[in-house]
């Protein structure tokens, strides 16, 4: 994908999120600097300027119990998305992604008997960098916790927080990350008002073909002889 295509997609995404109304700072997507050095494109949504989602819904089995039953005015809940992404423009490699790190942090402040409590929850999606590691790291994996939880060390009660298991998960750049959040953290009524929009569907489908189709094919090639991974290129798969 060229730099201008990335910028154009960010612009479309920003417009859609703006219209949807549950993202605090969709305009910040305009300001992300997308860098191109040689044939490498990269961008960062940093911890200091995360994309912030408001009004996410709390499911009824959430712990601490009762959060879902609090009146809306007694809980303030925010979800932060940060992302580091780098890819090659070349269509020769099957997987164009060079670096990936997505953080999803949910922070809630709620009232119990006239006092505040702060609670948090973090997910991290990573691209493994293939240095020797003692434990299994699927190339793309999702972890609960991650470095964002470090500041809560010692305050986790009886919860044990381990980096394992690193759950296999397909890669997500910015558009797929937003889609992940919209589908997982918003109830039907809220999410439908964006995911059913033609412009949104097109944006997400394009991203899936670009990043999930190669992932899916590489996965299947393990068992399907006709899909020798060496014979596949990114360009072939996405129809470039």
């Amino acid at each position: 994908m060229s730099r201008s295509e990335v910028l154009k997609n960010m612009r479309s995404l920003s417009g859609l999120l703006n219209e949807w109304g549950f993202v605090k700072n969709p305009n910040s997507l305009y300001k992300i600097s997308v860098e191109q050095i040689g044939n490498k494109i990269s961008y960062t949504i940093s911890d200091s300027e995360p994309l912030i989602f408001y009004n996410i819904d709390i499911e009824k089995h959430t712990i601490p119990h009762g959060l879902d039953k609090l009146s809306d005015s007694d809980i303030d809940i925010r979800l932060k998305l940060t992302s580091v992404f780098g890819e090659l423009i070349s269509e020769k490699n099957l997987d164009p992604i060079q670096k990936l790190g997505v953080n999803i942090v949910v922070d809630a402040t709620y009232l119990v008997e006239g006092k505040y409590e702060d609670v948090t929850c973090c997910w991290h999606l990573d691209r493994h960098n293939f240095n020797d590691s003692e434990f299994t790291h699927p190339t793309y994996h999702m972890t609960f916790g991650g470095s964002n939880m470090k500041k809560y060390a010692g305050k986790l009660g009886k919860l044990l927080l381990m980096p394992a298991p690193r759950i296999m998960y397909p890669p997500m750049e910015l558009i797929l990350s937003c889609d992940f959040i919209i589908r997982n953290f918003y109830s039907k009524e809220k999410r439908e008002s964006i995911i059913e929009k033609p412009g949104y569907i097109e944006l997400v489908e394009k991203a899936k073909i670009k990043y999930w189709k190669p992932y899916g094919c590489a996965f299947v090639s393990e068992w399907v002889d006709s899909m020798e991974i060496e014979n596949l290129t990114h360009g072939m798969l996405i129809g470039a």
Partner: protein
Amino acid sequence: MAIKYFYIDDDNLSTTKETAKGLSVFSDDLEIEAYQHKKWPEQVDFLIDHQNDFDGLLLDWSLTQKNESGEEADFDIEALAQQLRRLVIHKKKFDKDFPIVLCSANYQFRQVFSKEATSHDLFDAVYEKEEFNENREVVVKELIELAKGYKFLNKNLKSTAPLSSSLNILREEEKSMIDDRLIILLRQIIGDNKPPHEVSRFILEQVIKPNGLLINQHLLAARLGIDILNASNMKKFTDFKNKISKTRYKGIFSNAWERWWMKKILVWWKENFDEPLGKIVGSERVKLLNNKFQMNLIPAKPTELSRSEMFWTICSETNKPLAIEDAIIAKTKVGTVDWLDDEYYSIDTALQKDYKEVNLLEKDRLKKLKNMYAKTREKNESK
């Protein structure tokens, strides 16, 4: 040669001259010549006849008193400014464009004036007369820089020189790091043969004054985690600013409006530190700066009701540093362009605000926060 403004007021001439003298303290740089108003059309003719004698105009907002000849002004100041702008645009009778600055001693002036949105486009700067005493150096600098900017634009806008030299905003090498949309808009403005007052308005109001591509010193300090709200830290910060002078904006109007290119700050940070600026909290940023430059900058603290120290913006009312997640978006001004940052309030400030002063998107959250904090206050008080 000193920059010269004609100052027109309805006060008696000795008072007006006194005000003019106050602003002419640096007489090598700025000279203000005081006049009482005349009747229309003598007023317009007088300015046309003397156009070579002034570089800018300073006008009193309301002309209600009689002048020494016993004449009342039969026009209002907006009409005069409008007429002058029109004559400039149609290149009738004026060979140059010049800044028109408004002032008033009326203490409600800013309130009333801010509601009269239509006349905002006419004036390059607006001051309360009190500022002439309290903030004299800043006002003088701005008046000088405005006039110099106009002189530059009068001369260079007509030329066929490339964008960078005709506007003196960006150097060639800076173009690649600046938002494409700004360059496109600037090109359009020049291509459309806009008069200098429109070009200067765009540059000042959409590029220099608001935070976005360029940032002011409060936002600079916040993003680096430095406390400058305590006056005793200012000297250290000034020393520090000298160390990053290459990131400063040095184009048109930069002598009065001190700004930094945000992109250059990020590049500068990358050159000096491994840890990305946006990944570490304010106090860690200051620690790195102090170690590297053997300085003793003081880290900023979050506001009472903030949760995060990942400072990236400021409260537009108090200038205190804020993390985006703690910040409440203020009511967006109509007509702002894409590259500008949103304006924010801290939760502490927002709790004192009416719902109409925050962005529509933040109304529910503010309602919730007001409710939550009211409940905790009740709880504390009942203890």
